[in-house]
């Protein structure tokens, strides 16, 4: 704690309260907050906490996106094949700042995004149509019975 805030504490009630809360965090709570901030910076577009080597964390973030692209390509082979060499850069651009939700769900959302943008090649569209859940149809059948 810095001097000025400690001096201010006795005169302002809210300041003293904040101070008490800050002092009460345990090392485990600090670790949890630090880990959450780092993950947010890596996968959700959050700010990088101070002190880290920005270049190194950026390299890790890009490596993570490339690895994720590889996993989605394995789960969605026709989608990946239909985009060819463009798949990885296109996926990485889409996925940056979006937290991973598993290779199937990531591929599904990415394919739907391409379709909405009118950029989904025919083979990818075939794969999407075979695997896209159709909640409306299921619901209608349920009500008829």
């Amino acid at each position, binding site marked *: 704690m810095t001097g000025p805030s400690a001096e201010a504490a006795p005169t302002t009630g809210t300041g003293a309260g904040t101070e008490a809360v800050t002092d009460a965090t345990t090392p485990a709570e600090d670790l949890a907050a630090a880990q*959450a901030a780092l993950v947010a910076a*890596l996968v959700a577009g959050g700010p990088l906490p101070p002190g880290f080597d920005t270049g*190194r964390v950026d*390299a*890790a973030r890009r490596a993570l996106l490339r690895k994720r692209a590889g996993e989605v390509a394995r789960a969605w082979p026709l989608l990946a094949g239909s985009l060819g060499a463009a798949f990885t850069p296109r996926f990485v651009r889409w996925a940056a700042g979006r937290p991973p939700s598993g290779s199937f769900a990531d591929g599904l959302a990415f394919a739907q995004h391409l379709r909405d943008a009118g950029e989904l090649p025919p083979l990818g569209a075939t794969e999407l149509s075979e695997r896209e859940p159709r909640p409306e149809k299921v619901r209608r059948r349920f009500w008829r019975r």
Partner: protein
Amino acid sequence: MTSALSRLPDLGVGVGWRPEIAGVVADLPDLRFCEVVAEGIHTHVPLSGPLATLRERGVTVVPHGVRLSLGGAEPVAPERVRHLAECAALLDAPLVSEHIAFVRAGDLEAGHLLPVPRTRAAVDALAANYARTRDGLGDVPLALEPIAALFDWPDDEYDEADFLTAVLDRTGALLLLDVANVYANAQNRGQDPIALLDRLPLDRVAYVHVAGGREAEGLYHDTHTDPVPQPVLDLVTALAERATPAGWLLERDGDYPPAEVLRGELAAITGAVAAGTRAAGVR
């Protein structure tokens, strides 16, 4: 923990089992062990398919967890521990393994193994999660694997070797040592990998991972999609000179090579281990 080590069978040189290379793995005549990603195993049905065939042949199958988040500040999820225990029972495994890493925090999944800060608080968190996991596993030993990291935390209180020693001292865990990670970490910090190896608690090594990576953006990335480079094979030899792990395992994830290339990589590891064992004998 030496008793847990001495109970391990001699496992030889094995390979990380993946569905994509199931055929190649099934055709390896001398295979004594492989590893399977625990999160990919269904435990509510009897074991079937290629893994069941391997088990019938007497091949040891070690469940290797990747999503437990042992290094997370939050307690490990009991259902994940239960799944790991069910995997061990289903495969009759002599041990299971997981990473000294965290994979999620604050409701966000990283989708990757992330380095924990090398602090006392992280040792405490790891020790607590290790104890919770051990409770759920019963008699099955749990080996911990340090990871390759592209970056360090700003508030590190230990260096890598001291941190690992502190974690193993606190937990009593076995060590799953990945020599490719040792190489990657040393390379990316401008250190000598042999010097790093010599400071690790090598008497705790249960088995060893070997994998290939590649240079990108001036850093060595532990990709598992590339051939094992010579410096990593040299570390295999150096480790075999210094310790006698129960097994050595090639990890490959993606960009799977033809069968003869994979067999060639296993032969190269076997050769590198033999060179180290010979050198140790001469000494």
